[in-house]
């Protein structure tokens, strides 16, 4: 496994004895350095160059004098890779990236006292397993969402209620089912097995021992027969559902909204088993060359207006309580269940799988993320 052989300086024990490199948080805010290098999900950092009315960067730049250089990453894995280069200051990391960044020493703890907007963040998002270690926060929560099940209402009848719709080997929609193209999707299978195969005793879809993992992989290999294509960018997903190349599969709320807006007969549900999901956190690089601008950015992006802007443009639930009052669509927070903690109870946020099982088991080793990655290759064949 990948036990912590790091030795030396360490602050606190990580999952299963992993140690977190000791990195100091920024003590006090200084003057901005003039620029900040950002890694983000598409749509998180808009400066009006895409659409004049969508801009929460220009104002920030004017106000702080920090020029924003944004690099868009397609997947969590890319984000980790980019942050490892040390060329970036802040990142909008999802839960399956954040721990890797923390334990890799790529990001520093965050001094939340320096973020005036931190106090308005939903408590349900603070100090979670994916954004803190031993109560030390490593970032500012940005927003969250669930990986839903979308289907075309004209072809998929009766309407599905369970993930079984995408795993049924006898599915009438064989060849038109889609799934998210990332190793983390193994968790979706695990979640399904957790509910349908209690004998496997899965407690957390991100903590899978050999047998559990094998069962999930087998299920996905079987599912591969049904898959038309895997998706990772949402234009592709929208277009596939509109054209009918895909009729059933995972989605994000925003994709569903777009597809509907384009007039395609689709619907998305949170299946009975619950779902995986994401909760993103802005984190600051341990090697940040522009730490002050990075803090200014983090504070800005979770401010009610900017946070509302992102949440609406991207299509997710905002992290700041006050954002719900700032959205152009008054129903935005309702649509995305922003204040519905019960809804998010059913959501297993993306978390990086580790060798030391994060569900607390000590007697077995779990499959770590590199195993998940290699398994994903095998699943796709």
């Amino acid at each position: 496994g990948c036990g912590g052989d790091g030795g030396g300086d360490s602050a606190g024990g990580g999952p299963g004895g992993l140690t977190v490199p000791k990195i100091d948080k920024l003590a006090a805010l200084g003057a901005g350095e003039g620029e900040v290098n950002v890694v983000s999900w598409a749509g998180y950092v808009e400066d009006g160059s895409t659409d004049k009315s969508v801009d929460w960067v220009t104002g920030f730049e004017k106000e702080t004098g920090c020029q924003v250089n944004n690099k868009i990453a397609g997947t969590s894995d890319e984000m980790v890779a980019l942050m490892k280069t040390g060329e970036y200051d802040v990142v909008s990391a999802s839960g399956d990236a954040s721990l890797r960044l923390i334990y890799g020493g790529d990001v520093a703890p965050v001094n939340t006292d320096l973020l005036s907007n931190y106090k308005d963040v939903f408590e349900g998002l603070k100090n979670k397993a994916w954004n803190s270690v031993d109560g030390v926060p490593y970032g500012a929560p940005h927003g969250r969402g669930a990986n839903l099940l979308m289907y075309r209402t004209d072809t998929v009848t009766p309407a599905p209620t369970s993930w079984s719709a995408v795993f049924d080997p006898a599915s009438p929609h064989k060849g038109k089912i889609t799934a998210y193209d990332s190793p983390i999707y193994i968790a979706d299978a695990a979640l399904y097995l957790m509910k349908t195969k209690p004998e496997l005793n899965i407690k957390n879809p991100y903590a899978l021992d050999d047998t559990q993992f094998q069962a999930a992989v087998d299920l996905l290999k079987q599912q591969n027969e049904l898959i038309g294509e895997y998706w990772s960018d949402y234009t592709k997903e929208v277009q596939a559902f509109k054209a009918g190349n895909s009729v059933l599969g995972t989605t994000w709320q925003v994709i569903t909204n777009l597809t509907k807006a384009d007039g395609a007969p689709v619907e998305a549900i949170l299946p009975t088993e619950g779902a995986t999901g994401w909760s993103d956190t802005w984190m600051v690089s341990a090697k940040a060359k522009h730490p002050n601008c990075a803090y200014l950015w983090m504070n800005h992006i979770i401010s009610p207006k900017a946070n509302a802007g992102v949440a609406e443009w991207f299509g997710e639930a905002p992290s700041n309580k006050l954002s719900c009052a700032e959205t152009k669509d008054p129903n935005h927070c309702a649509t995305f269940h922003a204040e519905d903690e019960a809804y998010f109870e059913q959501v297993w946020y993306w978390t990086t799988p580790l060798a030391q099982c994060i569900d607390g088991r000590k007697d077995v080793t779990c499959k770590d993320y590199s195993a998940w990655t290699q398994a994903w290759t095998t699943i796709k064949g």
Partner: protein
Amino acid sequence: MARLGSYLHRHPRLRLAGLLSAPLLWLVVAYLGALAVLLVSAFWTVNGFTGEVVRQFSLGNFRTILTEEVYRNVALRSLGVAAAVTVICVVVAVPMAFFMAKVAAARSRHWLVIAILTPLWASYLVKAYAWRILLANNGPMDTLFGGPGYGLPATILVLAYMWLPYMILPVYAGLERLPDSLLEASADLGARAGRTFRSVILPILIPSVFAGSIFTFSLSLGDYITVQIVGGKTQLIGNLVYANIGAANNLPFAAAIATVPVLIMVIYLLAVRRSGALEEL
């Protein structure tokens, strides 16, 4: 100035050194050096959780690649795609180039060359996406031909589309250089057009075709974007490299996978070099 010229005149080796030093520094030291380091790193491993590279010699990556069936399958699939794309490009490019070089009037030749070159400037991504639309359910291809939809055939088709100009150009250049008198001699000796084509044109064209194939073959072998857009659930070797480096940050494993296309291409280049293909690019 003149004295230097005179000195250099007497010392041709010095002139040669002057010409070669900068390019070789670039290509050998920088490029080959970078490649070598990459290939060496294939023997390292990575800490699965933190993503730190562990510089310890290990054959583990290669063991995985050689034992896991999926890597063999993907490698063979990629090879098949590259070969199929190349064959399609040859089949389409040769008659087109022939028309351009030997049939079309000299004036229109000009415009035909422009017509072949222009698409090189249209973004690769945009073209791939246009194909995604063409290939969609109930899209134009589906309506006209009832398929092929997204998947391996679509990948081959679209890659062939992408690299076709890279095949047409060297073949056209080769045909332009081919003296008409050879074709006339063949006809004179009793050969019909088809025979002339098989016995005279094609063999002489082989270096040019190989030159074009370096593009069609290698660009197909390494592609991971087209296949994501129109390949359905297909994955090729480029996707695996990308998944491991661009995504999983496992440089050693990515490097190990990358040795496969590198090996294939180097063998391919060495093979076609004998035909003189590298001079025809």
